[in-house]
């Protein structure tokens, strides 16, 4: 497994350096090659540390950002060739719209989770399915996709998968037949909205594209991909689905009803009202011009007040390592942008595509998809933002923002290909293993890769036809 990852990391570095070589002639006295190479080295080392899982991804990004600033203020103070970025540049590089949006949504999810609504929906799905396994799978997939579109995927999967496995074990069927469709649906569902997946949050903030724009432009292809996913899952697990109609439905329902009930109905109602309010604010982005982060923070503070949740306790629930990871990543990418590395990569991609929009779409979808299957799609997307922004300005025919959609579809759908492609995949595999149904790298690849391949093919066709 390790040599494979090493190979993939090498490929990552190569992907970064080939366009760099193409655009090397862009080096100038303002953008010395030494600074470009240092920022490239920092980027590759941070990617390598994350891909190898050698240290926590937040620590890796912290290390990279600190190194960029340290080198700039020591070596760079004596010789401008080694100057990457100033402290002010670093602060400016951090996109606080992303940070505050994530923080606001984390608080809303943390409060909502306390109501037990996630597990309750899994139980309700079983009740609705009336013992029909295929119907149960479809309902669970729809529920997971919708939850993932509005809330974060890891929480959705972590709270839905154990109930699903419990149902499968009681029914004496392989949990794979239920959890694989759920994992894939989570990754596909999250693609539909600006807040569904971290890459989308990054893209939304960098491009200024609204919540509505995400829904209108990505919604159709997400729906098509979801329907195709249903077909693929049916092909893979048909034997399990047709095995039987479950006989002991009332008995199992009674057990699930006892175990998974709404813990706090009042809090659930409050959370749902606030979530709906936040979504309305997202939808009014074009009219009000309100940044999504303001909507999420407003929702979070309203929920904190009306639910009387303890602020210190709730802030402890915020996923600070992720927020710090994002901040440090912005600094690393900021350094790569300041030194001219990212403009050089962007120029390289433009030259490779020959300023041809069709070729550019294909390159962005497939490079993003393949990279997201191999490394964490957050750092990859963060590095691609300035590249896409450059291409968006320099390639004719990009007024429709098609390259941003290409990046979102590639980064999100590519995550379905491998077990390490998305955090939700790893979490689900861990729970499955402890339930007696381990999912190996190759098991996941066998089912996930065709899904990623088909959905990325569909995405490419969709983008080429529609734009």
């Amino acid at each position, binding site marked *: 497994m390790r040599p494979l990852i090493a190979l993939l990391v090498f490929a990552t570095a190569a992907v970064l350096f080939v366009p760099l070589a193409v655009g090397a002639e862009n080096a100038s006295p303002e953008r010395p090659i030494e600074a470009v190479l240092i920022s490239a080295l920092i980027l590759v080392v941070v990617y390598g540390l994350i891909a190898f899982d050698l240290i*926590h991804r937040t620590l890796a990004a912290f290390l990279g950002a600190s190194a960029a600033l340290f080198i700039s203020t020591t070596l760079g103070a004596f010789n401008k060739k080694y100057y990457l970025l100033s402290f002010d540049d670093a602060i400016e590089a951090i996109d606080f719209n992303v940070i505050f949006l994530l923080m606001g949504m984390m608080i809303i999810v943390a409060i909502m989770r306390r109501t037990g609504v996630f597990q309750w929906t899994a139980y309700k799905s079983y009740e609705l399915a009336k013992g029909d396994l295929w119907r149960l799978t479809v309902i669970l997939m729809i529920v997971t996709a919708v939850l993932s579109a509005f809330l974060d995927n890891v929480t959705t999967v972590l709270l839905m998968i154990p109930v699903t496995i*419990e149902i499968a074990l009681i029914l004496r069927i392989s949990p794979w037949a239920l959890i694989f469709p759920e994992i894939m649906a989570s990754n596909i569902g999250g693609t539909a909205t600006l807040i569904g997946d971290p890459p989308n949050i990054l893209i939304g903030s960098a491009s200024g594209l609204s919540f509505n724009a995400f829904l209108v432009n990505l919604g159709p292809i997400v729906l098509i991909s979801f329907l195709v996913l249903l077909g693929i899952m049916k092909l893979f697990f048909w034997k399990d689905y047709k095995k039987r109609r479950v006989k002991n439905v009332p008995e199992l329902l009674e057990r699930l009803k006892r*175990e998974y009930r709404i813990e706090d109905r009042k809090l659930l109602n409050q959370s749902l009202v606030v979530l709906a309010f936040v979504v309305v604010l997202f939808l009014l982005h074009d009219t009000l011009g309100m940044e999504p982060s303001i909507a999420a923070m407003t929702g979070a503070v309203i929920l904190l007040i009306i639910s009387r949740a303890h602020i210190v306790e709730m802030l402890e629930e*915020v996923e600070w390592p992720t927020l710090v990871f994002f901040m440090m990543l912005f600094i690393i990418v900021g350094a790569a942008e300041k030194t001219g590395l990212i403009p050089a990569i962007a120029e390289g991609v433009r030259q490779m595509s020959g300023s041809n929009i069709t070729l550019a779409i294909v390159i962005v979808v497939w490079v993003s998809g393949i990279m997201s299957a191999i490394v964490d799609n957050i750092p990859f997307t963060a590095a691609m933002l300035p590249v896409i922004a450059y291409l968006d300005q320099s390639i004719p025919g990009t007024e429709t923002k098609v390259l941003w959609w290409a990046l979102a579809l590639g980064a999100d759908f590519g995550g379905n290909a491998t077990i390490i492609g998305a955090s939700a995949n790893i979490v689900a595999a861990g729970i499955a*293993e*402890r*339930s007696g149904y*381990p999912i190996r790298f190759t098991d996941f690849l066998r089912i996930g890769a065709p899904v990623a391949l088909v959905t990325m093919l569909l995405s490419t066709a969709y983008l080429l036809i529609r734009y």
Partner: protein
Amino acid sequence: MGKIRHIVVSTIGSDSCKRAENKGIELAKKENAQLTFLYIVDTSFLSGIPRRIHGVDSAEKDLRRIGRIILERALERSVEKGLKAETAIRTGSVMEELKRFLRDSKTDLLLIGCEKHGLLDTHMLKQSPTELEEVTGIQVQEIK
């Protein structure tokens, strides 16, 4: 090897664990020994993500429920074969909890499932069974 009085089968319900459960039942009947099926709720695989925000604490509860089902299945199998067994659930790291349980329950033999994955064997222990044997002084058998 002296008389076996207490056999523990550490299980997560996988194929190899089911074989370990069957072997445990068979041996317990033969030796007229006490048999315990043990499930350890280990959420160390979630160490990379913050515990509270994503509900890792509730995942522990959920895994406990799953563990109970796995143990129920093991018990059913032993009853079918005419043996009355016991069950236990512990929470924590597999290796640490195993050591503690083996020490507290005066176990003579531990059976543990070991999946065969191509060239690799993987089992729940992060260390080799021999190390566990050395530390606890209890005989450990891997079932593939």
